[in-house]
């Protein structure tokens, strides 16, 4: 199988935070599909929303540092976290502007990189032929994209901002039945979990109830923040018991990788009943 290589930016949540299972499954699935993820040595935090909403220059400079490390590796950047993807993609976009590049260069104390390509793992896996050893025959999946992957499309390159298709397409290629539903890109409340839990419960409650009403067996996500919000508050919303999996975990199952290797036991909403009903556990 032809190997494609990328400079991999895991980001804090995947590397050592709450989304370890996303990192593990992303690496495992990429390897199985001939996509090589070489971790960027010495990468640092993208700054996330907190920096984006406090300083525009810092918000461009922090990802620019990582982009420069990738430039030295001579590889395009691969990111699985939607937040990190958005911040790096925005920075790359802003660095196309000469005056911004000048300011960022000053902040970095070195010339800011230009023209470094940033791709989300979904964009990398889209179009790769996947041979499913254990097809997800008819598994009803509500693909949930959230905000940061899709908006604004001219920066993220995810196409339709209200009805994106890329995750649906990839999951359908391994036999899942993606639902046509209305809250694919509704906001889950992002990083408000600590300061405004009430907002998260209101927003995720609406999304999860809608997915369940449409007949979803599970929700698929591509963002640690979306996962945390949709997975962690289900008891507070009212015993929804709707498993929320990373799309990489679903792909992994289809590729015949064991649920344990994919860390499916790490979610707060139990995935056991779903796996047993599919004969996977």
């Amino acid at each position, binding site marked *: 199988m032809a190997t494609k290589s990328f400079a991999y930016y895991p980001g804090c949540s995947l590397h050592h935070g709450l989304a370890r299972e996303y990192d593990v499954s992303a690496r495992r699935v990429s390897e199985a599909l001939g996509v090589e993820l070489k971790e960027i040595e010495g990468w640092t935090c993208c700054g996330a929303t907190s*920096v984006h909403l406090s300083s525009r220059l810092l918000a461009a400079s*922090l990802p620019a540092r990582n982009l420069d490390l990738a430039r030295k590796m001579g590889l395009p950047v691969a990111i699985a976290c939607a937040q990190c993807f958005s911040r790096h993609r925005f920075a790359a976009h802003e660095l196309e502007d000469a005056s911004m590049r000048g300011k960022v260069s000053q902040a970095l104390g070195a010339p800011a990189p230009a023209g470094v390509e940033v791709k989300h793992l979904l964009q990398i896996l889209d179009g790769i032929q996947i041979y499913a050893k254990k097809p997800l025959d008819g598994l009803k999946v509500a693909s949930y994209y959230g905000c940061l992957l899709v908006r604004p499309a001219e920066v993220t390159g995810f196409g339709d901002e209200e009805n994106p298709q890329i995750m649906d397409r990839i999951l359908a290629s391994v036999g899942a039945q993606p639902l046509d539903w209305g809250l694919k890109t509704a906001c889950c409340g992002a990083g408000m979990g600590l300061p405004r839990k009430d907002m998260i419960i209101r*927003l995720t409650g609406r999304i999860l109830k809608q997915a369940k009403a449409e007949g979803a067996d599970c929700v698929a996500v591509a963002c640690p923040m979306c996962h945390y919000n949709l997975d962690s508050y289900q008891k507070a919303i009212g015993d929804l018991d709707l498993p929320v999996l990373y799309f990489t975990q679903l792909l992994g199952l289809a590729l015949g990788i064991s649920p344990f290797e994919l860390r499916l036991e790490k979610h707060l909403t139990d995935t056991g009943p779903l796996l047993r009903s599919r004969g996977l556990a």
Partner: protein
Amino acid sequence: MSTQTLVPQPRSPLLAQVEALSGQKVYRCVQCAKCTAGCPSAPDMDFPPRRVLRALQLGMDKELLACSAIWTCLYCRTCSVRCPMEIDVDKVLEAVRLIAVAQKQPSPQRRVQQFHQVFLRYLRGGRQFDLGLGASFGIATRRPWANMDLFLALVNKGRMAFLPPKASGAAEVRAIIQRVKEAEAASARSGPSAPANKPTTSGQAAHGH
């Protein structure tokens, strides 16, 4: 949340600052309120998006810089995608917030502000540390036990790292933060285009860094 009454004010500097920073033309807004209709935060806002635009047109600078909406906005950009006048409404709210932050305006959403402040503090370590962030937020807000149930559930699942991450680039990140601060302070001193250093309508002197 009950919404604010809209009252026209004498011409004020915020509108020009916001337009310069956001690149958006606030007077293009025709007040159709599609932004507010699609806004996930609207029920939690004193100024839902349509009202932010109208209040800017009316010069309600003081109220906007102290408003709750710029802190409960999730910056999900649904408003911008749906605006028939093609205004990036989120950039307008973002600009008001950046100006409020630069002026060190106290936030009526104190916990939201504290969360971001704690996040920025941990950024200095080069990589974010969930446990440290959560604990420091609990201490800052004097509600250390508020999220204990979730914390214990995550510990139980082995998802909570107890040791702070190592980041070889931490010193470099601190240097970048420092240089950005200096650059922003310099541009605030010099340029009329810089929003951070203009006096507000409340008469409060802007902070130099």
